[in-house]
């Protein structure tokens, strides 16, 4: 039985994330999904998912407040090569720093900063909320079976900030909202989505299934 831990640090809709992961794990078999705030459980995990909603600084403070969690994440994801999926602010935390209201250091896994989206059309609402298509900029196993482009499937976004990567190599997919907005980032064994796969119906469930199958 392989173990997938969804990290509970007081930020994120864990119920819906857990339900979506359980749905896809049931189809694959032999995978247990566990929501936990215990770093020792995360240490044992075969895959790790980091959710997050709200403000960058609050989420980082929440993660830091769980004693030993950041250390275990560094140990398992950076040194252990465990497949990692960050979602929404959980993805943004992978950046070098957040620039939402105050400058806050991130985990520093994906060089870049989290900045406010600035649509070229001032009539466009902020937050960017709702369903949008994605454009895959670099092929990745987590995109298997997911049609992109204007006629592709849609992902559910709700955010006012996005991760601007320093390198084009770590930008995996974008979406368009009065300009290019980061949709997915990643390198090696880590992947992050600005949108919510657990709320993105067909696209999201497929991406979660791909994550559960992924052997980076």
């Amino acid at each position, binding site marked *: 039985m392989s173990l997938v831990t969804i990290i509970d640090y007081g930020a994120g*809709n864990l119920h819906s994330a857990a339900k979506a992961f359980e749905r896809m794990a049931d189809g694959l078999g032999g995978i247990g999904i566990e929501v936990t705030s215990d770093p020792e459980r995360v240490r044992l995990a075969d895959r790790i998912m980091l959710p997050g*909603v*709200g403000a960058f600084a609050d989420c980082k403070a929440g993660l830091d407040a769980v004693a030993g969690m950041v250390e275990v994440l560094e140990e398992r994801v950076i040194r252990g090569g465990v497949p990692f999926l960050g979602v929404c602010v959980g993805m943004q935390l992978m950046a070098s720093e957040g620039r939402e209201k105050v400058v806050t250091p991130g985990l520093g896994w994906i060089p870049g900063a989290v900045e406010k989206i600035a649509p070229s059309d001032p009539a466009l609402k902020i937050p*960017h*909320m709702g369903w949008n298509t994605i454009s895959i900029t670099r092929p990745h196993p987590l995109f298997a079976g997911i049609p992109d482009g204007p006629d592709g499937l849609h992902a559910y976004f*709700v955010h006012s900030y996005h991760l601007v990567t320093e390198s084009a190599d770590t930008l995996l997919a974008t979406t368009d909202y009065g300009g290019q907005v980061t949709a997915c980032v990643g390198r090696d064994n880590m992947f992050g989505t600005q949108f919510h796969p657990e709320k993105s119906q*067909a696209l999201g469930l497929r991406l979660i299934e791909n994550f559960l199958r992924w052997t980076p």
Partner: protein
Amino acid sequence: MSLKTRLIPCLDVMGGRVVKGVQFVDLRDAGDPVEAAIAYDAAGADELTFLDITASHEGRDTIFDVVARTAEHCFMPVTVGGGVRSIEDIRKLLLAGADKVAINSAAVNDPDFISRAADKFGNQCIVVSVDAKQRLDQRVGGDNRSEWEIFTHGGRKASGLDAVEFAVAMVERGAGELLVTSMDRDGTKSGFDLKLTRAISDAVEVPVIASGGVGSLQDLVDGVKEGHASAVLAASIFHFGTFTLPQAKAYMRDHGVAVRMDGVA
């Protein structure tokens, strides 16, 4: 830009069953909310909204079970409104599986509650329900006031607050979205109050969901094009089978509104 206009079926729930009020008074029972949610999910709904219409004055524990069972089956955003009065209410709904909560009376009675809720859970999950009615006396309150007044308790209680001013204040306090309902139009099938929707949408940066009064598919298009809404919400026309969600989406698409057709056509 390729962000799509959201089509949101709304399920009014009382005692764990779906009802739809005509002007919030004449209620008809129209089914099990979870069954309806699953059907709407399969038909291409972009989000779901549950309004617990008993909540302001009766027990409401049934809604937690409805939300939890829905979250087992529906992998799209779910908003729950009705009787949300405390940080603890919000926490329980989010834990049950809701993504957003819609707050009405508590926002009117204690605007600081919206600030606290947004700080605690993030703006993205705080929807303020702007329930507005046309003023009977347009002159009341002076020239700077809009034509609409805020009501609470399902449209039964006037607040004296100006609707547009209230909407702007709620966004300043952290509302991530506004659900704008014309209490004059709700249940009448005569179309959204487009002037109201537009006045509020143009006054705030956040998305506005138009609600109250949809009777035809053209009403949905008008809500977006004339009302400047980012999303349109309807209950009766879907609920009683007047139109299906795919019909509505196809109509919107054919009339120049970008909608998500995943799994629909």
